[in-house]
């Protein structure tokens, strides 16, 4: 791919010039070229939500859209929302509610909740469930995720 012009992506506040096939779905570029593995490839079909990242503040599935489509956009992954010892407010709410068993779906859900609260600081139950509808969880952490949303809403300044 040495003759491919680099693709520039803005991820977690940093510009990256990447020598990747621009048709590669964004999730693989994040995971393999940037080592940001919080976003998971769960289905490749935009059916499970494990690959969600924020694009210009909106929760967006990254497993089926080519990375090139995200040039010039502001991409934030779950890693960009906080880190161990210094979790972001939504992440902290997930920790306090013990939301997550195997945890494979959790980064996508953290992103979805962050995106929701960006748009609706105090969402009603229907808005919460609509925002989480694209996300599957097999272990049954749903009640704790819903409680974490409530906790994150209350914790907002």
């Amino acid at each position, binding site marked *: 791919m040495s003759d491919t012009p680099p693709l520039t992506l803005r991820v977690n506040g940093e510009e990256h010039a990447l020598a990747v096939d621009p048709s590669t779905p964004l999730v693989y570029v994040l995971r*393999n070229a940037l080592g940001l593995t919080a976003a998971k490839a769960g289905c490749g079909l935009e059916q499970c939500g494990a690959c969600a990242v924020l694009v210009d503040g909106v929760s967006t599935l990254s497993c089926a859209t080519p990375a090139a489509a995200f040039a010039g956009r502001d991409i934030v992954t779950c890693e960009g929302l906080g880190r161990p010892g210094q979790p972001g407010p939504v992440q902290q709410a997930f920790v306090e509610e013990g939301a997550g*068993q195997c*945890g494979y779906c959790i980064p996508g859900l953290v992103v979805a909740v962050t995106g929701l609260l960006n748009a609706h600081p105090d969402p009603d139950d229907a808005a919460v469930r609509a925002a989480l*509808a694209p*996300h599957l969880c*097999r272990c049954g952490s749903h009640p704790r995720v819903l409680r974490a949303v409530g906790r994150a809403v209350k914790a907002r300044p």
Partner: protein
Amino acid sequence: MTSSSLEEHPAVDDWIRLDADGHVTVLSGKVELGQRISTAVAAIAAAELRVVPERVRVAAVTTGEAPDEGMTSGSNSIEHSGEAVRLAAATARRHLLALAAEALATPADALELADGIVRARGANRSARYHELLPDGRFGIPVDTGIDDPPAALDPVQARRLRARRAEALATGTEVFVQDLVRPGMLHARVVRPPHAHATLVELDRAAAAMEGVHLVREGSFVAVAADDEHAALRAAARVAALARWDPGDGLDAGDVFQRLRDNPRDSLLVVHGTPVDDPIPDPDPPPPDAVVTLEAVYERPYQMHGAIGPSAALAHLRDGHLEVWTHSQGVYPLRQSLAEVLGMAPERVRLTHVPGPGCYGHNGADDAVLDAALVARALPGRPVLLKWSREDEHAFEPYAPAMAVVMRGSVDGQGRIRGWSHDAFSDTHLARPRPGPGGVGPARLLSARWLPDPPPPFVPQPARGNHTGIHRNADPYYDLGPRRVVKHLVRGLPHRTSATRTLGGFANVLAIECFLDELAHGAGLDPLRLRLEHLADPRARTLLERVAQQIGWHGGKGADGTGRGLAFARYKNRQAYVAAAVEVRVDDAAQVHLVRAVLAADAGRIVDADGLASQLEGGFLQAASWTLCEQVIWDSGGITSRDWDGYSILGFDNVPEITVDLVDHPHEPPLGAGEAACGPAGAAIANAVFDATGLRVRRLPITAQALRAAAMA
């Protein structure tokens, strides 16, 4: 109390190690699946050794290092591994105190322990654990006679411990098998036939050749590998388009529920939860004063494990040694079976457990290990991260078997249940790749069938253990007098099946608890009262009474469209007790909405209340999904449920408010609870739907379509 794990691994050093940096390492053979066993054993060790949880590490489960505790399954981890770690840590603490008494020239009863330091009370003398034991090795057996009361962490420390893993999950820093990276690593994908019985006829290697792509073929096993993951994905699609397959006879697309009743089978009478060779009697005729006599068939379709991430494994063959990283639930049994397929000495194969996407059962994790190893063997020296696609997982994981349970019984003039009869029909639930004679281990690894020299096909034998497999929880916990319980291992069914959370327990409890409701309604009795009249164990009665009170039990007479149902079981009749009560609303389009659920549980002594609640909530929701949403669809050409549109699971739109009510027995042993909520959950939902609609759907899933069909019948 002793633990079977301790019989195999009797030394303290098998379980507990003191590290030079002041940490304590716990070695458990049970793997973390999201059930928080690593949190529970860390809590137990920290409490017994009187150290803060930050000092405790739980080692990854690696063959040759961790104690061999077989499979992480059957809700046994806390009873086996948890008790082993507790006794090992308590023995270690006593030993350290004895060493300190000598080193500090102080009687043991004048010593105090605080976070890994032993102090002589009232004197300025102290010693750290690792100073007392410089090589970190105890060299003594676990004292199984210790009867000190179990130590518990204080709540603040317990919360800090829980937060450690929760924070890794929430910040996306938890490392799953799918996330592993090694220098020089190749990304690999398999190219599967249309179904599990098809074989490869032709693959034009010249046409399939792509720059930078390795094509691996052994018999009908086909895979591709490339430096770049997306390149591997594209190569897999291209090779799939070129491969020509012989579908053989195709998949049997006949009615599986008919097959369950008609096909050849091995049948065994089950007495007190254990199969016996006695002749199988006919069901009793109804008593002369029968008020009601019923026969009903409850059916579960094939269902998937449905982990959110498709299975994966990392394999690396170098210098004749194969190293594997896997989310298998049993690295030791898998090592042996894998070595057999590959013709390697097991000592040359090393497997390490790494967390994977969860599902509580035998999904594609073990199969992906063989796939990765086959590619690694073809490309020695290169680490190979092989990932299944969503379609691979949906179409080729070993499903939960379809089951049919035929119930018969009567209620007599005194309101007593008579002539209880239970026939459970199913394929095997026990196809994890445990080694055994005749290549039975390799035969249970998916791709072995496609190799040039395949093992003979796996022919399951009826499981004989207490509450194993098909007959798990088939013997009711109720006091029903003489009962006839029969398991039928049915042959010639279309799909590969294996262990899914509860094995046969879900369908058996579903059948028992729905049938109790049907008998109650038939006899004009309150379903709660009928249960309590036949339940002597006060621990069980308490739970039913508590959920009934909290759901606002009304005697089983729902209002239009809204209904309540309840159910109870004790897992394997010897582990945790769970009662469930559910309120549902069924709308005009016949959609079932879960409104509220109450779960009351008795798991003996509670080790991690929040972890226990989490397991109960999750077990409820997984079972709710089986009950309302899930069924594998196929035709003769293959599985047609190939993605989440073709196989739907419960989503956030139908999650009820769940209340968990835990009854603690601090002086009783802890009881495994990971699967205990599933059976009661499914039955309580089915009973609530009946209460709401007057319609009894006995074949899962209870979809709008199924309810409409029941209304027309």
